[in-house]
C-alpha cells in the first residue's frame, strides 16, 4: 500500500495525464436485461478482471488491487487470465464466462486479437473497460492505467537527463514485438529526440528467461562498448542491466533508467547502480478496474483514468524499500 500511495503521489506531480475521452454513462449504454435486473434489485454484481498473463511479476500486485475492490459492498471481483501471454486462452476464458459476468475489465494480450471479443461482449450488453494495457481499437468504454507512450517519453527524458544530454544509448526489452513494448519504445525514442547529442545504438530483444536477458545484455555491451546508457522498457531487464553494471564495475559510467519496483531494482536504485525507475502503480490499476465498472453501473459517468508515472531515484527510493 505504501508503494501504491508513494507511486500515486509521485504521479500527480509528474505526468500530464491521459487524454480525457468523452465520459461514458449508463444512459448511453444498452445494458443486458439480466444485468439491468440485478442493478435494479441491488444484487451483488459479478465482475471479472482479465489480465494478460497471470504468471508474470505484476499479476500478484494487480490482484491485490482487485481483491481490495472485491471487498467493496455489492461487488464480487474475480481476477482471471491465461498463464503466459496466450491470446487464445484469454479469449476462450472470457467466452466461457460471458453469461455470468456483469462487467469485464481487460488487459489484452494482443490488442488486435482481443478487440473483436471486447466488441462482442459489449454487444451482449456487458460493460467493458480496458486497464493496464489499452485497447483503443475496440469499443471499450474507458481505459484505466498508464499511458505507455507517455511513460516511454518520461523514461527517454530521464535517460537524457542522467546522461547529461550526450552519449550512446541501448534500449532493452524482453519482448520487442509486444504492443506495450512498441508503445514504450516509441515514447522513449520521442523523449530522447530532445537530446541531439544522444544516439540510440540499437534495441536489444532479450527474451524473457533471466539467463537469456543477462546474456543478451552482456553480448550487446561487448559489441557496443561505447554505450553509456541502458534504457530498459520493463520490469525485468532493469535489474539484469543493473547486475551487468555491478559485475563489470560500470556503475556510474553506464547509466540505467528502467521500469517498476522489483526488489532487486529497488536495491540497485538505492545503491546507485540504477539511476531511475518508473513505477506504474499496478495495485491502483487493479482497484480502478473494478471501481470504474461499479461506478458505471451505479449510473455515474466514467472517464479515462490515469494511474500515473511514479519516478523513483536514489533520493526517494527509501519510501518504497521494505522495512
Amino acid at each position: 500500500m505504501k508503494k501504491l500511495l508513494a507511486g500515486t503521489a509521485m504521479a500527480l506531480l509528474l505526468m500530464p495525464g491521459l487524454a480525457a475521452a468523452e465520459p461514458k454513462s449508463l444512459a448511453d449504454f444498452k445494458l443486458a436485461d439480466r444485468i439491468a435486473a440485478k442493478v435494479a434489485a441491488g444484487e451483488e454484481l459479478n465482475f471479472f478482471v482479465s489480465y494478460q498473463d497471470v504468471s508474470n511479476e505484476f499479476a500478484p500486485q494487480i490482484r491485490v488491487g482487485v481483491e481490495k475492490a472485491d471487498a467493496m459492498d455489492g461487488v464480487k471481483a474475480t481476477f482471471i487470465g491465461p498463464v503466459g501471454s496466450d491470446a487464445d486462452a484469454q479469449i476462450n476464458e472470457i467466452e466461457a464466462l460471458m453469461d455470468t459476468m456483469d462487467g469485464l475489465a481487460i488487459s489484452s494480450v494482443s490488442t488486435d486479437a482481443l478487440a473483436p471479443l471486447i466488441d462482442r461482449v459489449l454487444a451482449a450488453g456487458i460493460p467493458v473497460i480496458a486497464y493496464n494495457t489499452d485497447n483503443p481499437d475496440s469499443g471499450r468504454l474507458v481505459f484505466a492505467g498508464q499511458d505507455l507512450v507517455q511513460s516511454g517519453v518520461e523514461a527517454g527524458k530521464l535517460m537524457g537527463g542522467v546522461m547529461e544530454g550526450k552519449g550512446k544509448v541501448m534500449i532493452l526489452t524482453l519482448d520487442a514485438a509486444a504492443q506495450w513494448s512498441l508503445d514504450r519504445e516509441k515514447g522513449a525514442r520521442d523523449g530522447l529526440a530532445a537530446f541531439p547529442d544522444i544516439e540510440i545504438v540499437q534495441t536489444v530483444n532479450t527474451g524473457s528467461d533471466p539467463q537469456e536477458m543477462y546474456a543478451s545484455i552482456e553480448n550487446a555491451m561487448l559489441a557496443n562498448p561505447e554505450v553509456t546508457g541502458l534504457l530498459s522498457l520493463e520490469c525485468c531487464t532493469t535489474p539484469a542491466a543493473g547486475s551487468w553494471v555491478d559485475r563489470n564495475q560500470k556503475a556510474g559510467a553506464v547509466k540505467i533508467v528502467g521500469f517498476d519496483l522489483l526488489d532487486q531494482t529497488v536495491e540497485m536504485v538505492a545503491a546507485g547502480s540504477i539511476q531511475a525507475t518508473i513505477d506504474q502503480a499496478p495495485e491502483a490499476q487493479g482497484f480502478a478496474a473494478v471501481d470504474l465498472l461499479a461506478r458505471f453501473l451505479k449510473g455515474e459517468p466514467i472517464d479515462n483514468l490515469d494511474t500515473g508515472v511514479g519516478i523513483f531515484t536514489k533520493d526517494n527510493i527509501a519510501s518504497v524499500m521494505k522495512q
Partner: protein
Amino acid sequence: MVDRSVTAVKPGSGGLNRLRGRETGVFVALVVMCVALTLMNDRFLTSTNLLNIGRQVSLLGIMAVGMTFVLVSGEVDLSIGSTYALAGIASGMMIISGFGLVPAMVVGLVCGAVIGLINGLLSTYGRLPSLIATLGMLSMVRGAVLILTDGRPVTVNLRNGADPDVLAQFQFIGQGYLFGIVPMQLIFFVLVAAAGWFLLARTSFGFRVFAVGGSAKAARVSGIHVQAVKIWAMTLMGALAAFAGILSLAFLPSGQAGRMGMGLELDVIAATIVGGTSLAGGEGTILGTILGVLIIGVMRNGLVLTGVSPFAQEFLIGLVIVIAVAIDKWTTTPHRA
C-alpha cells in the same frame, strides 16, 4: 567412447566411421562459424567474449548432457524448463528461509530427480508416450511453482532473510570465478560433461542406454531391464535440470515462476539434436552435444555482436538448426543403407 555406443546399435567399423564423421561435421560447422564471426567482428575472438560464451552456454549444456541420455534411450523430456524453475526457486526459498546451502541444494536436486523419476515411471510402467507424460509434467510443475510463489519473484538477498555466509556461498557457485578467470558455471558444465561422457561411453549403464534406444525389443531379449534404464535416464535428466536451475538462481539471484526456464526445453533439445543425437533414439554422443550447445551459443553471441536485428536473429537461429540437422541426415543416410 564411440565403440560402445555404436556397437550397441549397429555393430561394425562402418558405424564407428559414421559417428566420427558426424562429430567432425558439427565441429567443422562450428569452426566455420567462428572464423566467419572473427572476420566480421574483432570483438568475437577475445578471451572475455569466449569466456562469456562459455558461461552463457553452461546451463544449456548441463541440461543437454541429460537430454542426450534421454534421447539416446528413445524418450524425450519436455518438462525440464519447469523443473529448472521449480528447483531453482525452491532452493532460493529455502536459503531466504534460513537454511544452509547444502540442504537447499539437496532439496532442489531431489525435486528434480523425483520429477524425472515420475516421468520415467509414467513413460514405462504407465505406458504413456514420454512426449505426453512430460508435456503434462511441464504444465503441472509450472503450476506448482506458481502456487508455491503465488507468482511473486523470489530474490535471494540479505534483505529477504538469507544468512550472509550462505548467501556468499550461493553467489560463488553462480557468479564466482575459479582463479579469478573461469566462471564457476563453466567449471560445473565441464565436470558434468566429463561425468556424462564417462557414464555414457565407458560404463555398462551407457551401453544399456544405447541398446534400449536402438531396439528396446532386442535389448529386452538380451536381458537388459529396459524400463529401469529409461527411468534412470529420465531421473538423471531431472536432477541435471534442477542443478542448472539452482545455478541460474545463484547467478541472477532473483527468479519468477512465470518466466524462469520458459521454453528452455526446446533450446536444450535443439542443441542436443544439432550435436547429432537422434530423436529416434540409439544414437548420440556427449562430445556431439557439447558441439551442438556451442553452435547455438556462438550463433546467439555472434548475431548480437554483428548487430543483426532481434527478429532476424530468431529466424536465423531456427534456420541454422534446420540446416545442421538436414546436413547431418543427408550426409549420413547413405552409410546406413
